[in-house]
């Protein structure tokens, strides 16, 4: 058979066999399995034929992220032109939001963030795979998409690159690579950026394209996030309506603004059984619970307007869900199967505490107007402990039930056997 007759797929398999054992094999295999199912099977043990391997799982999450990414590209332009020209009088989605001008700002600002995030992150992954001689791990596919969506739009590209190198090496590779990390790599990158370059990660300049460049000039523009505004001011007066907040026409990190699209993505992930609905539901419940407590404190009159916490404490509890990165964090990052809790009851506890602590950090620490990334990282650390106690409690409960069971004489023999196996 001549080489010309071979299908593309077959040729790739031939190249793969030629490369076997060579240094470049992991790099080639990474691209190969991204496109096609490998032509080899394991030789021993039971087999399950399923299409949803790690790469498909990752790709599903990326599909859920694409609407958010597209929206964020339009929003980048919308926030920029609104900051320069003022908000449009009669806002219409078609004329003011989904325009080429807006999208163009997205292309020149958001796309480079995505490219740098993927380029640098995958380069680190490939280098590690070649040095260690194992296959390239897929873990970065989702991280690389999450990272550009959780940083302010004006983040310099070199900062992002430094943070990605740090996050992939210290957050993931030192623990043994994908599936072994204790902290979510995307949030490790965000935390590194936040603590390393705080002036570029908070304030009222970084959320709008050219905000930092123009700072201090007569053309200065700003777009403060709602949370940032509330942390500074004690009244609930700003120009954004609830529907602005819900659909995402507000300043914020690149992809976190549109709660609506995040909700759709979340539903998609739940129905494709990629993400845990338990974590999402309990995290929402946790955030609402903390918000209700704060509202209650304000209603009881324990906190007056002179308090610096008044602005955020009196913020309606349900609005916490539609501003800031809480929704994005809950849907895409708290549900990370590697760093989250594994047991069902553990997921409830883990999710609830994420929501609860996020809102608590928001209100009590004005230096961190957004607390969701710290809350998730904190709970990542506690997830194994939660799982341990859940499993132990289950073991104890079952042992107790077994001991208390009335054993009929004819079952006694069997029961004895069971005790021994336990």
């Amino acid at each position, binding site marked *: 058979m001549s080489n010309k007759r071979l299908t593309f797929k077959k040729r790739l398999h031939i190249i793969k066999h030629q490369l076997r054992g060579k240094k470049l094999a992991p790099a080639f295999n990474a691209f190969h399995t991204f496109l096609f199912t490998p032509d080899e099977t394991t030789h021993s043990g039971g087999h399950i034929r399923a299409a949803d391997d790690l790469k498909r799982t990752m790709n599903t999450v990326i599909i859920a992220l694409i609407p958010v990414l597209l929206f964020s590209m339009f929003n980048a332009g919308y926030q920029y032109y609104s900051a320069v020209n003022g908000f449009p009088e009669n806002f219409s989605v078609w004329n003011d939001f989904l325009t080429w001008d807006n999208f163009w700002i997205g292309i020149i600002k958001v796309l480079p963030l995505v490219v740098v995030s993927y380029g640098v992150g995958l380069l680190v992954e490939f280098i590690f795979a070649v040095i260690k001689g194992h296959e390239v791990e897929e873990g970065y596919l989702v991280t690389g998409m999450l990272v550009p969506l959780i940083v302010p739009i004006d983040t310099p590209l070199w900062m992002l690159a*430094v943070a990605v190198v740090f996050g992939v090496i210290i957050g993931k590779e030192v623990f043994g690579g994908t599936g072994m990390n204790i902290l979510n790599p995307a949030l490790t990158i965000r935390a*590194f950026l936040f603590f*390393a370059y705080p002036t570029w990660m908070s304030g009222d300049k970084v959320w709008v394209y050219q905000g930092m460049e123009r700072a201090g000039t007569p053309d200065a523009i700003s777009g403060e996030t709602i949370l940032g505004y509330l942390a500074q001011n004690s009244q609930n007066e700003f120009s954004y309506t609830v529907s602005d907040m819900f659909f995402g026409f507000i300043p914020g990190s690149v992809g976190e603004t549109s709660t609506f699209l995040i909700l759709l993505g979340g539903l998609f992930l739940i129905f494709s059984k990629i993400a845990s609905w338990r974590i999402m539901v309990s995290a929402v419940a946790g955030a609402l619970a903390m918000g209700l407590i704060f509202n209650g404190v304000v209603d009881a009159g324990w906190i007056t307007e002179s308090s610096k916490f008044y602005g955020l404490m009196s913020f309606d509890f349900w609005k916490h869900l539609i501003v800031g990165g809480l929704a994005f964090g809950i849907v895409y990052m708290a549900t990370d199967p590697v760093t989250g809790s594994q047991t069902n009851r553990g997921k409830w506890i883990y999710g609830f505490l994420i929501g609860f602590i996020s809102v608590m950090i928001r209100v009590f620490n004005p230096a961190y107007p957004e607390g969701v990334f710290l809350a998730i990282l904190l709970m990542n650390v506690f997830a194994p402990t939660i799982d341990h106690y859940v499993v132990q409690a289950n073991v104890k409960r079952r042992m107790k039930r077994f001991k208390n069971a009335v054993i009929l004489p004819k079952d006694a023999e069997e029961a004895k056997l069971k005790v021994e196996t336990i």
Partner: protein
Amino acid sequence: MALLSRKDSKLILDPLADNNPITIQVLGICSALAITAELKASIVMALSVLFVLGLGNVVISLMRNMIPSKIRIIVQLVVVATLVIIVDQVLKAFAYELSKTLAVFVGLIITNCIIMGRFEAFALGNGVWRSFLDGIGNAAGYGVILIIVGFFRELLGSGTLLGFPVLGNPIEKTGLYAMGYENNGFMLLSPMALIVVGILIWFQRSRNPALIEEN
């Protein structure tokens, strides 16, 4: 080295690399994290520990046959405390600003595990000259790591070395800062010191696989 026999020079050289008190024995970590944000403070700390450990080992070694073993810890503490107070007073007299920066950490040399560790493990059972070399060697091993960590933290965190701006002026935007470079504030926080020490341990172990424990 004609001055030292091979066995003696091993006492000095071993702690510098393959038996480093910080990266291999993981002792004295607290001060390594706390005071390495500036290179100058790291160097002064390294010299202080060099003085205390070198002299302390000699004193303990001289007294080793007189110390009742039941109260040896107290005696060791008295010796360290005396030496540390000398260091503290000298710093206050001649480098007041620096002693402010180091604050409580000079006093805490007393609790540095490396010092008590060397007294217990070496000075109590060896002669004066060998104890002195061991003390100098271990303090140097500690100091080298401190200085390396301090170098990177000050360079990347503040853009200076020993207080001199080497990367340009961050406020007037000269040098590297003109190109958009920013100081990494995370470097000045203690967690980053831990990570830098961790990277050093990683580096050292991957160069010398004999150091990796089997499990």
